């Protein structure tokens, strides 16, 4: 394309893309600038690496980064891993499949906070789950399940909440694969796993990537599930950020915020890239 054409295209795109760029750009710029000492709400505004320096010296910061990545990665992984078999199962309509599909997607309609409250009720010390496990004789005494140290509670909640979204994306993709193509693979000796790995997954890779990335970004930045059901000995990045903000330390909050954005961006890029590498043996197209 010639320069003139480029300019035309850019001019045509400017009203739409420009607005989006300005809106996103402002937020990012603000966060980055604030993390570097500008836009101080109290006291002097001046450029300084001081806040980054101090932050990078805190153990809790690294813990928080690791924990958020862990939650984001496994939430995305479990949601997609659960959604795939369901999407394949619901590929062909059968009696009741519409109802099952609707029930499976119900969590999309339940606000996360409400779900988290219900969840801790169920797993609480005297909750239904403990009583049930004792009743069937599996456990002798109630277990303490709330706010477990590994964040399993959060993973359950994140998966519960996000699986329907992955299902929504994957169902359409899986349905677009023709029966004959799957039958042909089967006829050539591909069993269930081989059909998934060699046919279904590569043909639905875009939807899979979209689901992984969107769920990852959401879960990395989790705040509400963490506050209610998360471990008390570590904080997610969002929680960490709010902690600084609440104590009036805006520059530290901004440092964590910028970190969160970077983690979301780099993490999703890596995730999307890894998916492609694993499924296509490195071939990009």
């Amino acid at each position, binding site marked *: 394309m010639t320069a003139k054409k480029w300019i035309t295209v850019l001019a045509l795109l400017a009203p739409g893309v420009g607005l989006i760029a300005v809106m996103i750009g402002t937020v990012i710029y603000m966060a980055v600038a604030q993390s570097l000492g500008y836009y101080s709400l109290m006291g002097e505004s001046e450029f300084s690496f001081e806040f980054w320096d101090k932050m990078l010296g805190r153990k809790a910061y690294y813990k928080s980064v690791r924990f958020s990545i862990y939650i984001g990665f496994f939430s995305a992984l479990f949601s997609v891993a659960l959604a795939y078999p369901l999407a394949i199962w619901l590929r062909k309509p059968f009696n009741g499949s519409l109802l099952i599909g609707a029930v499976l997607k119900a969590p999309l309609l339940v606000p996360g906070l409400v779900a988290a409250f219900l969840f801790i009720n169920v797993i609480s010390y005297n909750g239904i789950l403990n009583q049930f496990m004792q009743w069937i004789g599996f456990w002798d005494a109630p277990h303490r399940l709330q706010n477990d140290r590994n964040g399993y509670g959060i993973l359950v909640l994140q998966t519960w909440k996000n699986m329907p979204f992955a299902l929504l994306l994957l169902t359409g993709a899986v349905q677009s694969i023709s029966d004959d193509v799957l039958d042909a693979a*089967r006829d*050539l000796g591909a069993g269930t796993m081989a059909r998934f790995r060699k046919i279904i997954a590569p043909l639905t890779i875009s939807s899979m990537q979209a689901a992984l990335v969107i769920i990852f970004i959401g879960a990395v930045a989790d705040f509400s599930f963490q506050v209610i059901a998360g471990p008390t000995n570590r904080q997610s990045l969002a929680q960490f950020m709010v902690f600084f903000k609440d104590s009036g330390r805006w520059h530290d909050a901004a440092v964590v915020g910028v970190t969160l954005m970077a983690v979301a961006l780099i993490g999703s890029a890596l995730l999307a890239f890894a998916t492609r590498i694993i499924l296509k043996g490195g071939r990009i197209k």
Partner: protein
Amino acid sequence: MSTIDIDRLEMRFGNFTALKDISVSVKEGEFVTLLGPSGCGKTTLLKLISGFLKPTNGTIKIANEDVTLTPPEHRDTALCFQSYALFPHLTIKDNIEFGLKQKRVNGSERKQRLQDMAGQLALDAQLDKLPNQLSGGQQQRVALGRALIMRPGVILFDEPLSNLDAKLRDSVRVEIRRIQQENNLTAVYVTHDQSEALAMSDRVMVLNGGVIEQVAPPETLYNAPSTSFVADFIGGANIMNAEVTGETEPGVWALQTPIGEMVSKSDRTPAAKHIKVCWRPEAVKLVDSPVNSFTARVTERQFQGSYTDLFVDIGGNGYRLKTSDPGIYPGENINCSIEPSDLILLEAIQ
């Protein structure tokens, strides 16, 4: 050693019986065609043999082993889909090699077989392309190659040539037959094109409404159809009702027909007193004869080049004749006769 033995096979979908009481054996290396009108159950039978459907009754053996309940991935069959069903995300090379990789055939052998197959099907230049970059005929050949490269005991084709133009169809047809014979593959080939069936097959199995009408070599099917359905479906025939009035000498039957008294020379014993009989349009001789002769009035003429189709009226009924004489026109009366052996005895009238 791949034979196919199908015994009293039945396939029902709910209340609908798609196949009924199918029993047939295919020898090793034999090329059998399934021929029949749309909806008669051809694809269903193929899916039963390849394992995508489980019969509601009966058994299927491949190489003397009962595979009725064996899933497709564990049967020594390869199916060539009517819709090609190529893997859209894989290159032609990967498509063709898919089954070999699945079977863990080692790299050098795979390479050799791929080369041979690509050469045979003229696909050498296409190997690095994706399926949607190929023409319909090329895709068809990839589908063939993908199945053939497996060298399966049994190869199944579901109307593999239906999307090709006439010229390409002829050459691919020859190609399929050659590869099948070279590798001594047992083949079942579905088509609704009767000329394809006659030209390619060792035997043809005619299906109608889920039941076998006749299984026979092409020549037998043409010269001695056993039912009026087969007679009409293969090559066309004039079918009449007849009453058997007696056996004038061994194997010669006197008949009362709408076009007069006739005799038929046949190995078959008439199935009943009232039966159907048929004669081929091209079996008629335009000469008088002491037996089986009649006079026909020509009502319509269609010149076809090497022969001429005549539509005639005999005693108020319409029939078709084929003649090499282009000089006969509507309105003329012609004397015709049929050899007793060309008057074929068919099924009883119900």
